[in-house]
């Protein structure tokens, strides 16, 4: 049983250290596939790559709907 836990822990440690240090979560410049992109500080990308060129997303125009956050939001 503890053998299994140790194996899982080593796999998890190896994976998270690899992913952390090689920054798998970062936006990879000029690459269409962004499988591991993990948004930081709730900052969403406002576009994506089409054939290596950054194309602004159509929803970029909708930011004007922002009405703040906080406890008052949604009340």
């Amino acid at each position, binding site marked *: *049983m*503890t*053998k299994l*836990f*140790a194996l*899982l*822990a*080593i796999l*998890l*440690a190896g*994976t*998270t*250290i690899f*992913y*952390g*240090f*090689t*920054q*798998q*979560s*970062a*936006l*990879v*410049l*000029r*690459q269409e596939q962004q499988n591991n992109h*993990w*948004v*930081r*500080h*709730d*900052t*969403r*990308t*406002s*576009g994506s790559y089409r054939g290596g*060129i*950054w194309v*602004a997303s159509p929803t*970029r125009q909708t*930011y*004007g709907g*922002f*009405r*703040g*956050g*906080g*406890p*008052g939001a949604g009340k």
Partner: protein
Amino acid sequence: MSSPKTQRTAKFLDSFTYLTLLSTAGIFACLLVSPIFMRSLVSKTIQVDPDVPEQLPPIQLKKEPIGALRIDVNAAIPENHWVTYEIQLKDQQGQVIASGIKQAWNESGTWAEEGESGTWAEDDLTGGLDVRPTQAELVTITLNILEYSDISGKEIDQPVPFEISVVNGAVDTRYLWTGIIGTAFLAFLAILVTPFSGKVIIDKFIGDSDISGRGILGGTNNLVRVSVNIKSDEHSPPVLNVLVVINDGNGEQLYSDSHRIYLSLNKSEGGKVTGANGKLSSFFILEPRGSYGFHVEVTPDATVDRTEIIVREHCKTLFPVSVTSLKSIQ
């Protein structure tokens, strides 16, 4: 009966449990060393006018094995204001090659609930983008305010100060924290199950104070754990004596020793004792492998409701333990 030899040993420590703990420590060590890869490129405050993009000096990037280019931006806006800003990366031709939008806000107010009231202030002002270059190139970071207003939605045409920090070689510590939490959980599970390691050879209980069992077990380097679990009623004394006797296949007595165990009392809400539990664990090396009988007697027996004996072999331990070596002459 030759006198049994008891020795404290770390020989049967569960190395896998320690390996699990070591992985947690390993990730934590990586977390501590991760800042040494970071090189600060920009750290300053700039004023940005709404709809007038502000550029930073170009930065030379190249593909690197460790870390990414991290852009962190913090908008310094007054209370009850919103700002939507965009971080852009441009190449040498001025083409946008990446961009991210942050909707930042800083709000405060008052609350009243069930006769109580107070003030609250919350904000979410920091935006961040991590990018990994795939080739060597010169990039320019641009900051652009898309919308700046107060909470009534009225647009404001005033510059906003932004604290910008650009760092190269930034490691994503969110993965490391995930790893630390995950492996710590596994280590916790490993610590929990280690006392139950090994193969159960005898598991018997009786609604009384005396119990016996026999099984084929033992051999070289085979740690045998004898566990006794006792349930005692509300009149229980705080201490009970547990006599453990081990006989070999010929009925020859190899070991007989009395252990004092302190009970943990179960109390009702009023503080009245409702019962008590006691546990005893003893470790043995029994040689050669063969048939061994185990006998347990709990005294004084008047209050004992239940006695259970569990004998396991090929056990591992969490800490060094005292092990009694017994040899049967057969």
